[in-house]
């Protein structure tokens, strides 16, 4: 534990100190220029990594935010006479506001649509910078002077130190943020936006916040960029730069501050790398070798498909061959970027830092950080029988899809503290009914009352916040997050520290408490010893139990379990039954959709049977099993005398 902290923080401090000392010992203005650029690109790429790495979207607007921030800083100095800090503040704000504005249309979008929205935004901003020449000087460019910082004029090394300090602050802020609930939420909404909403976390605000944050760092980097070069041109911030930035993030390694830093160094060094023929050939040969080794290993172990292993080798081979054939590598720089980026995306999806991190963790035997002892479960979910009365009431609930009447006028009352079964043949409308209750679909008509008050309609997020939690028939776990993080993400009422304090690192205490509480819930689901595993690596049964633990973290009044036993092996079914029993002991009302009749008989106090979107029977499990209408619905014929229901 201490070793981990020492190694990780120690490396950061040593690198920072080294970077800070260089101007004291070496007086080479070219080197200083490169270092300054390195810090600026570092900030820019950390911002880009929020969308590309954590939100998992291809963001093509970061170069535009760099440009907009740069022009904002430049103009606030030349037109408004702002000082250094004021101008940088303006550039940060421009990135934040425009990022927020762009995030709204981009919000509902995934994948290609998101990429398109950001691409149009950057094309549009280049047009504006070019054409609004009264303000920006158009294609002629904009010259500006570096303003004083608190009355002091900054020389080259002074400005470098300023950039370095800002990079260090951004680094610390981001590290704190990404380790907090915010970071978890960013990753969660990449893996499953639906579950993020259903856990009351809210995709909306986190997506906007994540994008605006990344863009604001782009703007801030733009401000520094402006004061570094003191001359701006719209052509500097086009698509070409964007591709280079993506190269930096992907090659360095996504979801990693070190990756962003490494990517930035690479971008800064690329021009030198390309102009020096021998260096270029050495590096391309090394790339080819790496592709051969990595591809060969993957191919031998059959973890990668042949073409997947071969493609990076071909790309790197083209690079090496090109190095011998082409007269001037400088002219081919775009093609060189393309080939390098291609090889990395295909052959090294975690980037160089992702690869190195795994290797270094093994080398230094760095263990993952230790877990706190679990809280007492009774403190997380207090014991207690809730008194009778109706918790949930459905009044003539309807949901039509076009002409299909999936739910056609259901009336149902769920009593407090009961396990209420909801059964019916396949396609009878059970799942649609709970999807309407939990807010995935808005009802076509009818009322849903929770404790006498109408439940919000058609919003998973609002229903979750109102005290209803659910699991999904088709698992909706956050696959890349650990089991522990899955539960921590959903934990209700655990995170109260406001964003500015989170950035300063004041959320550690509450995060620790949340971790302890989440461990207690994992223990309830029998997953205490698998807390650190990624959700997608758990066994199928464990994944089902994890969904229950996660839903419990909402501390719900009403818990909806949508076919929790589907696909479970027999021993797991008995575990499931005992988990549900211990949940009932804590006074939580449960709606259980299930096909296993033995599970239903054992657990349910009341059972409602649905067929063709309508209630056909209600009563105790034994009563409905004998109901002729129920038997007909399942077997298709009304028997002369009652027969047992199929299990």
């Amino acid at each position, binding site marked *: 534990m201490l070793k981990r902290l020492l190694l990780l923080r120690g490396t950061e401090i040593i690198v920072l100190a080294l970077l800070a000392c260089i101007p004291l010992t070496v007086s080479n203005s070219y080197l200083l220029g490169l270092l300054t650029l390195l810090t600026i690109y570092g900030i820019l790429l950390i911002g880009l990594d929020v969308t590309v790495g954590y939100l998992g979207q291809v963001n093509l607007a970061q170069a535009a935010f760099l440009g907009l921030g740069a022009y904002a800083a430049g103009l606030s100095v030349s037109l408004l006479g702002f000082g250094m800090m004021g101008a940088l503040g303006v550039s940060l704000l421009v990135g934040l506001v425009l990022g927020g504005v762009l995030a709204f249309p981009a919000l509902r979008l995934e994948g290609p649509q998101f990429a398109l*929205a950001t691409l149009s935004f950057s094309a549009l901003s280049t047009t504006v910078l070019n054409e609004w020449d009264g303000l920006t000087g158009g294609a002629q460019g904009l010259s500006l002077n570096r303003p004083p910082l608190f009355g002091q004029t900054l020389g080259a090394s002074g400005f470098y130190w300023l950039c370095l300090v800002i990079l260090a602050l951004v680094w610390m802020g981001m590290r704190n943020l990404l380790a907090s609930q915010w970071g978890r939420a960013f990753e969660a909404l990449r893996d499953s936006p639906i579950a993020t909403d259903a856990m009351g976390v809210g995709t909306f605000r986190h997506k906007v916040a994540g994008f605006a944050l990344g863009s604001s760092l782009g703007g801030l980097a733009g401000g520094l960029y402006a004061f570094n070069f003191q001359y701006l041109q719209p052509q500097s911030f086009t698509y070409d730069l964007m591709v280079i930035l993506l190269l930096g993030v992907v090659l360095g390694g996504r979801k990693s501050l070190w990756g962003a830093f490494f990517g930035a160094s690479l971008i800064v060094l690329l021009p030198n790398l390309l102009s020096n023929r021998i260096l270029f050939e050495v590096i391309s040969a090394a790339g080819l070798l790496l592709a051969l080794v990595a591809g060969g290993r993957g191919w031998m172990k059959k973890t990668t498909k042949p073409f997947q292993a071969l493609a990076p080798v071909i790309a790197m081979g083209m690079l090496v061959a090109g190095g011998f054939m082409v007269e001037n590598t400088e002219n081919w720089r775009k093609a060189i970027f393309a080939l390098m980026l291609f090889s990395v995306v295909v052959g090294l999806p975690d980037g160089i830092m992702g690869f190195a991190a795994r290797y270094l963790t093994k080398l230094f035997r760095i263990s993952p950080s230790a877990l706190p002892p679990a809280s007492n479960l009774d403190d997380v979910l207090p014991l207690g029988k809730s008194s009778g009365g109706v918790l949930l009431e459905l009044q003539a609930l309807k949901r039509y899809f076009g002409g299909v009447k999936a739910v056609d006028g259901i009336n149902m009352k769920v009593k407090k503290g009961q396990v209420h079964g909801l059964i019916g043949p396949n396609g009878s409308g059970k799942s649609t009914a709970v999807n309407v209750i939990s807010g995935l679909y808005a009802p076509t008509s009818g009322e849903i009352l929770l404790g006498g008050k109408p439940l919000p309609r058609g919003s998973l997020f609002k229903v979750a916040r109102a005290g209803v939690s659910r699991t999904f028939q088709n698992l909706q776990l956050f696959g890349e997050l650990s089991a522990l993080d899955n539960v921590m993400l959903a934990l209700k009422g655990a995170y109260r520290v406001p964003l500015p304090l989170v950035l300063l690192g004041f959320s550690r205490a509450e995060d620790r408490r949340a971790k302890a509480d989440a461990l207690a819930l994992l223990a309830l689901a029998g997953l205490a010893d698998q807390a650190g595993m990624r959700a997608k690596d758990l066994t199928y049964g464990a994944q089902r139990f994890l969904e229950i633990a996660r839903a419990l973290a909402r501390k719900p009044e009403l818990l909806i379990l949508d076919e929790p036993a589907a696909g479970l092996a027999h021993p797991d079914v008995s575990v499931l039954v005992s988990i549900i029993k211990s949940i009932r002991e804590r006074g939580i009302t449960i709606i259980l959709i299930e096909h296993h009749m033995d599970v239903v008989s054992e657990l349910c106090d009341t059972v409602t049977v649905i067929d063709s979107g309508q209630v056909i029977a209600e009563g105790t499990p034994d009563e409905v099993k004998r109901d002729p209408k129920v038997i007909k619905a399942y077997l298709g014929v009304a028997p002369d005398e009652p027969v047992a229901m199929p299990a």
Partner: protein
Amino acid sequence: MNMTIIAQMAVSGALMGMVYALIAYGFQLTYATSKSINFGQGELVMLSAFFSLTLLNLGAPYWLMVIGGLLFGAAMGLVVERACVRLALEQKSEGWILLTIIFGLLGFSAAENIWGRDDRPFPSPISSDALDFFGISITGLEIAVAVGVLAVMGVIELFKHKTLLGKAFAAVSADRDAAELMGISATKTIMLSYGLSGMVAAMAGILISPITTVGPTMASALILKAFSVAVVAGLDSGFGVVVIGICLGALESLTSFYLGSGWREAPGLLLLILALAVRPNGVFGKANIRKV
């Protein structure tokens, strides 16, 4: 302002818009089968145009150039499918966006170095003399564009609706897994769609080049407009892209007339962002239901 001039601008813009529609149609073809589009399609148009120009310069007759250009486009489409799209889809990632962008970059750089950075004229057997329709002059080239676009789209639509292979297309786009269970190879259908899409891109290049000239920068100019058309119209309506393409072309030409040519791309881009915000499935697209 003289009405005739406005009408003149609108009509020539609209005819150019037909080409944007054709490129956008290429996006629809691949989106239907694989839910992916080639972000390097603009470069594909440009590369095919350059290749065709080279064929002409080598002395090939015009009809042979068209065939050669189309085959080249189809081949490039297949390369994109194998090296970018399928590779990424095998890893179940959105990596295809990045990989097709990379392909475009490589194509751009290659064109810059092989054919040079300057714009070059592209000869055409059709005369560029203007014909007069009610005071609006339209060149033969512009008419050829309209006819060519509609012919290509018509042939492909016929193919999709009247042949068995075309029905496989519809099957894969409706439900990939079900189609596979019925013995249709989704992989082959996706390859076919990328081949067709590349061919369509090559046709767009051959049609538009005599009017605009050929140069590496034509790629980015065209692709942004084609994206706008495809998104505003929706990625599943062939009729929609033609309508929106014509409107957008006219709008663009009027914008550049009134605000200056630097702004000509602005309305399309704004419309694209607006369309994504208000109707992510496009004006002619169908909304889909969230499923869990």
